[in-house]
């Protein structure tokens, strides 16, 4: 059989390329170009607004890795991820198992209730939650005090020890519905005859779930964890509206750090877009690294 030349292959598939072209152009404009420019900007000493931009090589990267606030924010982002993703995965799975039961008549209602926060604007949730957790007349504190769980109001968002767990809690509540939906989709791929066969073989209760169902949905779990992990590293709007990274950096995750350095803040610091890009590139590479690791894990799990 004659092997076609590359140009011939391309020519033969020309309509495919024509149809792909709009997507390629848009990806280039809105993904490739910004990424490329952020790499370039990261090598500049530039406020982002002036004409004057000085090429300084890797100096911004050097400064970032020597900045304790950078590493604090970096670590805080991962604390956020490790503190929220397992909770969402486990809770989402448990809820999905219950709501996947066809016998439960109110399942659609509960599904709707749990999913409702997902479709609510995150900025609105952030602002409303500042009132919910207010130590002065906030419903959370009113509840705690009326039930004698605490004798004095707690400044959930103003105390450096409680601010991050509080924001993490709100994040879990806000996005739990989507995790539940992922799990429901996964569980609905399990054929009914598997349940029936398992029951005939005497597998019931937790044994059914641990030994039969869980291995089947495990590949989905890897995808869900991957999506959730990346999502938990992108929490800018929630934290910006709830705490803006404060008090004194206690809830400053990487996105807030990048934002703070890229713009003029109310503490009077001047914008440094070049530096912010360096921090962003570093952060992007770190997230990519995690994604690749998870991808490898997924492939390995599939082989098993």
């Amino acid at each position, binding site marked *: 059989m004659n092997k076609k030349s590359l140009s011939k292959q391309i020519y033969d598939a020309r309509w495919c390329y024509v149809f792909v072209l709009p997507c390629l152009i848009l990806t280039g404009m809105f993904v490739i170009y910004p990424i490329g420019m952020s790499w370039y900007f990261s090598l500049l000493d530039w406020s982002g607004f002036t004409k004057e931009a000085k090429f300084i090589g890797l100096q911004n990267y050097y400064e970032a890795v020597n900045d304790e606030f950078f590493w604090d924010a970096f670590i805080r982002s991962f604390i956020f991820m490790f503190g929220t993703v397992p909770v969402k995965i486990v809770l989402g799975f448990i809820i999905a198992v219950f709501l996947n039961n066809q016998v439960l008549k109110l399942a659609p209602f509960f599904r709707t209730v749990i999913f409702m926060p997902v479709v609510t604007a995150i900025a609105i949730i952030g602002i409303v939650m500042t009132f919910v957790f207010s130590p*002065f007349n906030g419903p959370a504190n009113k509840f705690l005090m009326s039930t004698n769980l605490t004798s004095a109001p707690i400044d959930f*968002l103003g105390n450096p020890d409680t601010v991050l767990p509080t924001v993490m809690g709100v994040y879990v509540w806000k996005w739990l519905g989507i995790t539940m939906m992922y799990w429901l989709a996964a569980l609905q791929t399990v054929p009914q005859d598997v349940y029936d066969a398992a029951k005939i073989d005497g597998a019931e209760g937790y044994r059914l779930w641990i030994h039969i169902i869980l291995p089947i949905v495990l590949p989905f779990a890897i995808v869900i964890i991957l999506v959730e992990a990346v999502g938990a590293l992108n929490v800018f709007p929630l934290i910006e509206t709830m705490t803006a990274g*404060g008090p004194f*950096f206690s809830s400053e995750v990487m996105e807030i750090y990048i934002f703070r350095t890229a713009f003029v803040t*109310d503490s009077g610091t001047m914008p440094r877009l070049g530096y912010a890009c360096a921090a962003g590139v570093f952060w992007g590479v770190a997230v990519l690294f995690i994604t690749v690791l998870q991808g490898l894990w997924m492939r390995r799990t599939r082989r098993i």
Partner: protein
Amino acid sequence: MKKKKDLKISRRTVMKGALAAGAMMSAGSIPSKLFAGEFNIPDPLKPLPTTGGNMRWIDSGDMKGVFWKKLFPEYAASRGITIEYDGLPWKEINKIVPIAIRNGTVHDVFQLPIGMDPGVAVSEGWVQPWDDYIENLDEWLANFPAGVYLPGVNQFNGKTYGLCLTANKRTGTCLLYSEKYMSEAGYDPQAGRMTYSEIRDAAKKITKRGNGQYYGWIIGGNQVNRWEDVVHTFGQVAGAHGGRGGFTNRHINFQNGKFQIASDQYMEAVELLLQLKSDGSAFPGVMSMNAPQARALMPQGAAGMIFQGPWCIGVWGRDAPEWKYGIASEPVPDGKKAQPLYIAEGGSNTLWLSANSTMGPFAGDLIRFMGTEQGQIYWAQTVGAADPAVNPEAVAKAGLTGPSAQALAMFAENLLVGPNPIVRNKDVGVVAAKSRVPDPSLALVIQGLYTGQLKGVEAQLKDCNQRYEDALDQAVEEARADGANVTRDDWVFPNWDINSNYGASKYSEL
């Protein structure tokens, strides 16, 4: 609507004004606007384009927004244009304006973000001069008090780029208090300036009486600049003489040209804030609210005292007209006499015209009107002490009473014009453009001390002071490398008499 010439007030308007003034006197409060229902907008001095258009305008809102929202519809209708107004908090302006400048979509008229050097805006070509859009500009500028329009501040290369309708003669950390709570605590701030001990004691007593329902003192603690504003102004009142404004003025003692962040006066001010917290007198949610949120809680009876600016007067007058409150000068450390506060020359709320704007004729026409005495009276009557009109004669004629008048009298008594390095040497503007406020800034350091995340007031302030010194040194070095003729000696004013205004004659002595 019938148009009138500048400075002429119609009989009907006078009647309305007299009636409103009478009502004001009888009610003992300030009217929101003396001339209810209309502005006498004069005809333009020269024909305006007939093409119409939409003028976009952004500023930091508050009471300014209240005024513009009244005036803009009338002005727009009289000139056949539309006006889109955005009054936003500084935090938003700091983010939106730079992005809009970069994208070429900035509003026609805008305020520059805090800390951004106007010289950079001019040299970068973001703004255009007003000279072509304000008829008889020199004559118009002559109506303003000396020192409002200065080269290097709002005038560059012989042209006027920034226009100021408001004075900067005010402070943002006055003692505003609930008359009821303060009186129950046994204090009357009107009897004389309170001391730090008295503030603590009053706060404790209010908190005790409140029994968990209200507290002695409140601050918008997650808006970090509030911490710095309080410490800076209290420090000055206690005798840390220095500048106000941006990084190249603020916290600098112009007697020796050094930052005074680690001075005893600053430390005492920080200690006062920490003591209010340790006494249990601070409102329990201060770290999770911004300044407007804290301000809004005062009329709700949540706290007895707040250190904020005169802009609260208008907001409370509108939102809680029945609530009784008082305004007084900043407190002073025990056993010390209050010292003057210093403002830099120039106005405030400077308005810049976008280089891309085609609405310059309308913006210039409107601002020219607002710079006349009649426009300034209108402004003063609505905005009051929140952003005082720049023309003192117009303010006097506005007939303000109550807290607004009291605040203006207080500012007149407490504030002096201090030296301004950029007036002395315009190359200081190059330094300002090169400056980077160290991270963490003083505002954040104070916040960290308050939350307990940072320990040791003296050590932290000394570290912070050194960072500021190093940052200014570096900025001066970079400016000099770029050809600027500037040294740290430009921040030293040996002929500064701290008890008098520092004017043009003083600069010429240097």
